């Protein structure tokens, strides 16, 4: 998946499923998701489940750091740096 595709699906999901109030405009790739109040500790886990299922990767406990989820850019980097889980290479 291209960087743009990843960013687009993250933006869609965060806007429609994670944000507690639907934002006026979709967040820019460098918008501070947590500080800006779009992703809280509840939304974070919804988002992690989505990312794992959609991109067939496993997020490790120690990767749940503020820096990795601060912006859509940061999450995209996290996703791109990971190998697909075993048996999932053909998914999607």
């Amino acid at each position, binding site marked *: 998946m291209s960087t743009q595709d990843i960013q687009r699906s993250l933006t869609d999901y965060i806007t429609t499923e994670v944000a*507690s109030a639907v934002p006026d405009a979709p967040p820019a790739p460098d918008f501070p998701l*947590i*500080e800006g*109040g779009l992703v*809280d*500790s*509840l939304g*974070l*886990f919804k988002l992690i*489940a989505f990312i*794992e299922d959609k991109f067939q990767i*496993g997020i*490790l*406990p*120690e990767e*749940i*750091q*503020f820096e990795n989820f601060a912006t859509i850019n940061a999450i995209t980097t996290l996703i791109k740096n990971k190998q697909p889980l075993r048996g999932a290479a053909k998914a999607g």
Partner: protein
Amino acid sequence: MNIPAQSDVVIIGGGPAGSMAATFLAQKGYHVVLLEKQKHPRYMVGESLIPQFWKYCDLAQVTDKILAEGFVQKQGGTVVWDGVIRQTAFKDFGYTRPALHVERDRFDLILLEHARSQGAHVFEQVTVTDVNLDPGGQVDVTYLPAGEQSSRRIACRFIIDASGQSALIGRKLAIRVHDEEYPFMSVWGYFNNSSYVALDGRAHAFTELRDTPPTTFVSSTGNWGWCWHIPLRETTSVGLVVPLEQMKTDKLENEALQAYFLRRCAEIPYLNRLLEPATYCDGSVHMLRPYSYRPKQLCGPGFFLIGDAAAFIDPVLSEGCLLAMFSAHMAAWTIDRCLRDQGRTADYQALFTRQFAGRYQVGHALMLTGYGDAAKVNGAVANSLRFDSEREQELMYVALTMAGRAENLLRLVKPGDRQRIAVNRFRTLQSIDF
């Protein structure tokens, strides 16, 4: 009583932790059995809820039922700490929804009934007597319905221990550690017709409660002890948190508990004035000790600990029910992930541990007084604080400032964030007007 012999998840205990976990799992489509020893409505202490709890209620879709009950809505807090009177209002943090003072028998009943309505199989007056945690395969739970002679079992994929201070699994596995750093105990009781403090800084008669919302009143009582005053719909909950050492010198005998409680209440400035018109509800005194504990382990093969069954810290920040709901949500999320991909169970359990331990260790470090050292908390723990919204961090800072422990929070956050959250959204009062 038709209790199934098999289930995806068995939950021990129907307090806020157990009921919320049952709701979250039932909503995800799992077969859940919840066993509760008592019959709701049942008495429980812990009546002051801070606004953050609504987000769990929204997720569980129980918000309307709680609003419909008409609990007392509080507007903020009035804290007298070492002689300084401070007041803060939730609306100054941008909270548009009220915090509540709840009769826990009613509140917990609503959450339990809601779990039932969402498809959880809830059985009351059923006591869990043992668990079998064979690491090899399925786990099971042994229970005894009230009035029956022989116990039965349920096999399941996961057990959630939400048994509160009974801490069934924690005791069985001897993984509960009493908190030497926090040697306190608590004594509390109920009064009719107590005055209360509103946001105008004045004392009001109990009869005005419906028209003029109250604040939660808290006062220090020396040596890090403190007291609470929580007006409910019919009565007012009043409690003392007392250093154990002081208790030893007071040489409290059981039969004198009520007299001790009333004498101390009459000695505490402002609290005694609030209680002047009040009458004590006979026989309503309760006591809890030892007080604070935490686990060496939060989950293991086939089980999770949540709410007070995992850890209990001083309630000065009113975080108990919030932590119960947080850990219930976390356990339901983790079990869902584990059941979807069993190969990653170890990862997910590690994640649960990290998140939940981070939460209560933050709570614990914030609580510490002259007795402990918040600096011992490691960076991974402080990390969990950073996922809180700015508003939540600010509220925590103010609550801690008012209770004389703001420096604990400042030690945990990154230097750059200190200035941002250290906004003092409170006002200092010269006196409370009676």
